[in-house]
């Protein structure tokens, strides 16, 4: 993955910590999805041979929890980074160039739907389009609820001291259905957005190299591009 070192050809978009965390999420999420579904469907014909190859349901369960712990460590590192960003670097956590949803996103959705029906132009996205924000928040919030329901299944004796016993059953269903949702979202929406969109096929390298091509920057994030140009003019 060589990078464009020439200035003006590509711009820094993600720094090393974010790239590292994304790789951690890829690996652990994939392992969680595989082990999780093998566990849930371990009785069925297609799963039982795979289950026995990996070492049985017990080994699968161990691996599932191991990956979950590592994934959550990634979440905690991300949250620590957010504190660092706000307190030490004195940047804003909500605003135009952040992941927080705002009124512009609603306008963009409406404009984008109209565009799909051949009425009007593509919306002019800022640093993160509404789809990328949904992607981030689905994962961020999803990990919290998957984490809680997973913990409830891991330590039922502890949680049934706080909640009624049937909450454990609820946790099982919640965990399963949200797993289906998460895997479908990543598999269908996220994979399409990063692999199948014609502009970036076969793979959008930005999240791995940290640098976004000038053309992609101008087309996909025009508001941020305008801001970038203004600061360049003011501080060459």
């Amino acid at each position, binding site marked *: *993955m*060589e*990078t464009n070192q020439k200035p003006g050809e590509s711009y820094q978009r993600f*720094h*090393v*910590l974010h*790239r*590292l965390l994304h790789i951690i999420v890829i690996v652990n999420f994939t392992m969680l999805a595989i082990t999780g579904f093998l566990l849930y469907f371990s009785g069925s014909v297609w799963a039982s041979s795979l289950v026995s190859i990996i070492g049985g349901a017990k080994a699968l369960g161990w691996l599932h929890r191991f990956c979950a712990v590592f994934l959550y460590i990634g979440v905690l590192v991300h949250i620590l980074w957010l504190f660092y960003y706000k307190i*030490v*670097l004195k940047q804003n956590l909500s605003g135009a160039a952040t992941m927080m949803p705002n009124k512009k996103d609603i306008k963009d959705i409406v404009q984008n739907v109209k565009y799909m029906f051949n009425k009007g132009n593509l919306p002019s996205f800022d640093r993160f389009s509404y789809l990328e924000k949904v992607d981030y928040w689905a994962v961020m919030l999803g990990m919290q609820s998957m984490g809680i329901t997973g913990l409830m299944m891991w330590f039922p004796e502890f949680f049934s001291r706080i909640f009624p016993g049937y909450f454990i059953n609820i946790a099982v269903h919640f965990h399963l259905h949200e797993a289906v949702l998460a895997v479908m979202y990543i598999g269908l929406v996220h994979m399409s957005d990063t692999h199948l969109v014609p502009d970036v096929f076969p793979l959008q390298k930005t999240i*791995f190299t*940290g640098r976004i091509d000038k053309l992609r920057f101008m087309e996909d994030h025009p508001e941020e591009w305008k801001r970038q140009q203004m600061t360049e003019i003011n501080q060459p």
Partner: protein
Amino acid sequence: MNLKTIRSIIAFGVLVILITALNQTSSVAMENSALKSAIIMRKPIHKPLICLNCHRARNLNTNEGIISSNAFCYECHRKADIKKKIGTSDISLQITPDTFNKNQPEHRFVACIQCHTDVARSPHKTETGATCLECHPYHSEDIANSPHLRVSCQACHFKSKFVQLDPKDHIVKLAHANYIGVPISLSNHAMADTADRRTCKKCHFKKNQVGAPAIVLPSKGAICILCHNAPLAMGSPIFGLAGVIFIAGLFFMITFWFKGNVKGEETSFHRKMSLSSESVWNTIFSKQIFSLVKIFILDIILQRRILKESVSRWAMHSLIFTSILLRCGLAIFTAIGYYFDPRGNLIIALINKNNWFTASVNDLLGLFILIGVVWAVIRRFIVKPEQVTSEYQDTIALMIIGILVLLGFLLEGTRILMTGIPYNTAVYSFVGYIVSLGLFIFHLDWTSVYPLMWYAHGTVAAIFVAYLPFGKMKHIFNAPLTYFIEAVDGVKK
């Protein structure tokens, strides 16, 4: 098929044979004690009649099966008058279901014959006693470390004050008589509270006869993994403190590196971290990673650059460095292997200090380190080549390693004397054995000397680890980093 290929094949073959051999060895006498004790006592081993060869076994996977299986045993053993005669004393063999369930509630649904695996037969006499290892693994290093491989489970876990060292297999076991020779009954199955330190005093007192140190020693600390199989535990606060100082030292070292600036960037630490992590990332995910791996293997592990300059200096440094590297590698392999297979023969062999492989390899590598240090001392302080300048930090670094290894061998000799292991086991720790022969001329109470030597060796080891980021030993971090940066920046000497 050139010489290199042949050598690699031979090396690989040796490794395969070695690992297979280790897996076959039943390194712990306990597993073979029945056969061994029979042979040693020269009893004819006539084939016993095993009940379950003809009679149908209960299904021990069900609670009903266990209760029904136990009913056979309790039919005789619940009676108040069941006893055996030892000498002139009558020893009770009574155990009732209520007593057993009260004393061992966790084993309520374990059948008698699942622990007492060899009593369902005639003659109705156990050779092995209860075999806990059918279900439970050995203790890991941090709870009851490898010295307890020579102690039977019952000796600690049963509530009886009296222990003995069985001379036939050198295992510490429960004694069937008290210390004035009166036989005692062990059938009430009462368990000791091993969380209470007073249980340890069964064996750990001055001048004990079972070869235990006079005090309970802590486990090794995690920092000891540099040379020894060690747990992920603090052990003694000495090791914890050394670990903290080590990490603090690393922190100061790295902050010092980041104090300057290279390309005129601002003094912000955040900016420096960004730039350096970017270049690290771009180096790792690029073609350069292959040349870095090559440098790691050739220059750092095999020390090619010193070899090119001088074979004798390479030999002197490798005697110390490669030995420590191999010991550390073996220790990490054992620690990870223990996690995956705590009952495997290979891992038990590696944890057991008296196993032929572990003892001889550790002693050989330790001897190499000592030879390397002595060679370095001779070169630096006696031969004194012109281009070598000696500062006090050099002396400190050499002295710490040298004294550490010397104390280690003294400790090993003391251990051999204290535990009284027989000649044919001790001889594999060949250096320690010779040290023990030398120490034997001093008739000391080894159970009291051993703890002192242990703390001496441990303290010097703690100082060694804490001192690593300071002084001359910093080169173990600086030199590899310099090689990598030189390779990436393309600086040629």
